[in-house]
């Protein structure tokens, strides 16, 4: 079925290949080419990522040395840091916007947007996305969303400050916190634009994967990256509309006096008229997106890591079908575990037990994935590119952070660690670090495919080792801060004598945070320098067997100059016994590799 459509697509493109002329605007700005759109997503996300990272460094200064003044804070954020002292309201704004940017703009828009766009047409063997126009819209909604979020930083009353989860009534009442004024309105507008972008992108990804695969590219010959992007896109399509509903109702409560989330409130010296709403409703709606969102962030990273590990280990990924199966199971379970964010909202204990059951089940497919990665590395022949370092780092953080999920998912244990530093450590390792490691692995690996040049490997190594030391240095000790009972989102831990014991640890965490943060500039220099001055890449620098490396280094409209190559085998024929080379591209027919064919392959 897909083959027919692809033939048409090929013909259509072939016909107007020669008459295609780009102006500056259609090539770099309003581009409908998936390769350019992926670069636009990536660079936007990197810029936003640095903004969010610098925010985290500012509040780590405050948390590490609460009694000290840092003049640099005043020069960075102006009146919010008067005299070098961070304002408590702005501290909350920083943690809120840091979380929002990282989760949505970097790890959702940046990760899926960049790599789904780049790799789906390339690895499926398509001329472009199913709809180039929707794809362009997807980026421009994303860009508008970034602009609105950035603009909210400059609002007089401050940006949204109710935490990235924006629970009402705090996020609904400007009387409660100044950030819930105009800043929060802009946050909601930005989020609505973002959801539009995610949906336009997601529909495009699904349609392209299902319909535009080249001849011979059956679903079981797809690289795991594509499987990950496909499942991620489906998750997004099913869950983002729910966040849209939640945001819309919150906008109504804030601006039009409705009472979806508000009831029985006395604030600012007077009772409010709202009645009959429930703040907990918002949490249900939010986490119905929020939990799948974790896997929207994580699955593409795991997919990229699978591909990078197989290529650089020169070894087929172990248990290809089990990898797909576990991703499908994780995706399915992600829709029925949202309640584990709400064990202590007063939910019925029986309902709580149902969520404990479903939540802990997630550990089984996750464990299978980890064992499969380790089995892939066993007796491998690892070529240490910077990309594979990050991919291996991802497996490590995925283990470390995933395991503590078993504790948080247990409602009886959640009581005492809910919303304290234990959960901060958990999700920063398993979701934040793993996903960003996957993204870095993707950037280093596919940089030559995107820009036709190589990134400097030595700076890459330096970047990785500083980053993983930073990550573990920050988040491993943080578990113990949580177990000591220190709540998250505290401007300072000085209010209770019992927290004196963790002061030293907080200082150490901040030092590692600064090391980790500053080392990202190594990456930035390498990235932007290499775009213009990096060494020219050869067509297949990593000797990879997947389709994207069969296209010429130059970016062509339609990707391949002639016909789209036909696929004859799965993507992981690395180090196949009997074959001279240690890889066989997907485009090599079985008839040409008779010496290495396995029984059943003729």
């Amino acid at each position: 079925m897909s083959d027919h459509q692809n033939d048409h697509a090929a013909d259509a493109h072939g016909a107007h290949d020669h008459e295609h002329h780009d102006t500056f605007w259609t090539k770099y700005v309003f581009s409908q080419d998936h390769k350019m759109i992926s670069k636009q997503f990536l660079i936007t996300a990197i810029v936003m990522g640095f903004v969010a990272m610098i925010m985290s460094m500012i509040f780590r200064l405050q948390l590490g040395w609460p009694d000290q003044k840092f003049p640099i804070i005043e020069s960075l954020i102006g009146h919010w840091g008067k005299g070098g002292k961070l304002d408590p309201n702005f501290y909350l704004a920083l943690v809120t916007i840091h979380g929002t940017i990282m989760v949505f703009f970097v790890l959702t828009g940046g990760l899926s947007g960049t790599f789904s766009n780049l790799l789906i047409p390339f690895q499926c063997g398509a001329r472009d996305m199913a709809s180039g126009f929707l794809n362009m819209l997807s980026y421009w909604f994303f860009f508008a969303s970034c602009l609105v979020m950035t603009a909210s930083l400059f609002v007089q009353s401050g940006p949204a400050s109710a935490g990235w989860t924006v629970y009402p009534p705090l996020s609904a009442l400007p009387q409660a916190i100044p950030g819930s004024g105009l800043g929060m309105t802009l946050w909601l507008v930005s989020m609505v634009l973002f959801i539009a972008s995610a949906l336009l992108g997601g529909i495009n990804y699904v349609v392209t994967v299902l319909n535009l695969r080249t001849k011979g590219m059956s679903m079981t010959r797809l690289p795991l990256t594509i499987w990950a992007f496909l499942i991620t896109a489906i998750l997004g399509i099913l869950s983002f509309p729910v966040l849209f509903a939640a945001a819309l109702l919150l906008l109504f409560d804030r601006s039009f006096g409705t009472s979806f989330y508000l009831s029985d409130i006395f604030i600012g010296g007077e009772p409010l008229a709202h009645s009959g709403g429930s703040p907990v409703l918002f949490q249900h709606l939010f986490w119905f997106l929020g939990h799948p969102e974790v896997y929207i962030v994580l699955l593409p990273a795991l997919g990229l890591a699978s591909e990078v590990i197989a290529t650089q280990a020169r070894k087929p990924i172990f248990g290809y079908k089990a990898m797909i199966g576990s991703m499908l199971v994780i995706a399915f379970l992600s829709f029925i575990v949202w309640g584990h964010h709400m064990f202590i909202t007063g939910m019925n204990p029986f309902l709580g037990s149902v969520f404990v059951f479903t939540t802990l089940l997630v550990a089984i497919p996750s464990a299978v994935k980890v064992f499969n990665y380790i089995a892939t590395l066993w007796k491998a022949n690892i070529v240490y590119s910077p990309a594979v370092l990050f991919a291996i780092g991802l497996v490590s953080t995925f283990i470390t952070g995933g395991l503590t999920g078993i504790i948080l998912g247990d409602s009886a244990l959640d009581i005492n660690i809910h919303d304290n530093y234990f959960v901060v450590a958990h999700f920063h390792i398993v979701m934040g670090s793993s996903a960003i490691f996957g993204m870095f692995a993707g950037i280093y690996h596919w940089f030559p495919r995107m820009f036709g040049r190589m990134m400097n490997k030595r700076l890459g190594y330096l970047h990785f080792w500083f980053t993983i030391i930073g990550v573990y240095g920050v988040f491993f000790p943080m578990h113990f801060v949580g177990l000591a009972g220190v709540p998250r989102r505290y401007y300072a831990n000085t209010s209770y004598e019992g927290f004196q014991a963790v002061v030293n640890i907080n200082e150490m965490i901040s030092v590692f945070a600064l090391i980790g943060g500053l080392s990202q500039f190594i990456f930035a220099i390498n990235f932007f320098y290499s775009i213009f001055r990096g060494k020219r890449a050869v067509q297949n620098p990593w000797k990879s067997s997947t389709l994207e490396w069969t296209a010429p280094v130059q970016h062509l409209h339609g990707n391949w100059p002639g016909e789209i190559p036909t696929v004859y085998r799965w993507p992981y024929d690395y180090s196949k016994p009997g074959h001279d080379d240690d890889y066989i591209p997907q485009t090599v027919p079985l008839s040409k590799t008779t010496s290495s064919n396995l029984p059943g392959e003729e």
Partner: protein
Amino acid sequence: MIKLLTLIVVALAIIAIVRLVRVLELVNALNDEKEEINEADNKFNAWMMLIFGGVGMFLAAYLTIDYQRLLLPVSATKHGVITDNLLSVSFIIIGIVFFITNILLFYFSFKYRHRVKNKALFYPVNHRLEFIWTIIPTIVLGALIIYGLKVWNNITKPAPKNAMLIEVYGKQFDWLVRYSGGDNTLGKSNFRLITDENPLGVDSNDVTSKDDKISTKELHLPANTPIFFKFHSRDIIHSAYMPHLRTQMNCVPGMTTTFFIEPVITTDSMRLITGNDKFDYILLCNKICGAAHFNMKMKLVIDSPEEFKKWYKTQEYVFQRTAAPATEPAAVKDTTAKQAEATGSHEKPVVAAK
């Protein structure tokens, strides 16, 4: 001055970046090789994997032992002892998995680095292995789920009828506590009745409110007595977090949430256990609630039942003040206070940081 310094720092940073780029160019020009990964790179990173894995695992083990001193002391409540056991068992299990999988990961990364003579083993699947490592986690997690749910059912079972009823009430940025008195029933309350004199909005027409007592400074609990908490909030969501009591519950406006506990260790005994004669229990807010969120707390004291009775006698009734003959000035004062609050409502809440 500060602006100048910042400018200098930025200028230096730019110069540094430009120099670095220049150095890179020179290095690139010198060695003509493509960015190919060579033997030395593989060796370096493989050894780094071994060193990072080894030192990392050692530090993880060392910190885990060393940081035991930071952990919360033994649970001050009955249910906390049960959950602490579950926590220990869970930590032992995940600890074992953490060390085994991470050690294998880093060791393989070291051992199987690229060597020109070598070829990787073509080993795409082994159904028996996959079956084994699916079934083992399933059994372990099954056991953990059953254990966890048993504990959960145990600690969330309905409180006994005679449990002492206490209301914990959150507002920006402090806690209020209401005791239900001799009838063990809290008088009705309504947020529309809230005034400065009646911060909980208790209904004075409800007879059950007559013996309710209020505490604004400290939360006292009698040891070895079942206690049934009801949680409320007047403005936004707060979370009543008593880490030493292994107790936490959100306080949600328009909703009542509950938690049943039985404290067993008095403040005095805990001072002996921790060897810290200044030790105090604490009630913290653990749901982001505004500028002074980090300072929203209340001292918590667990008394022996006798001491508790003594302390309880000294506490004020909710309607003690209105029990006195109502006078004009009181009413006037009341409205002015209200006006002051109403006009001041658009200003930022005062932060009690010091």
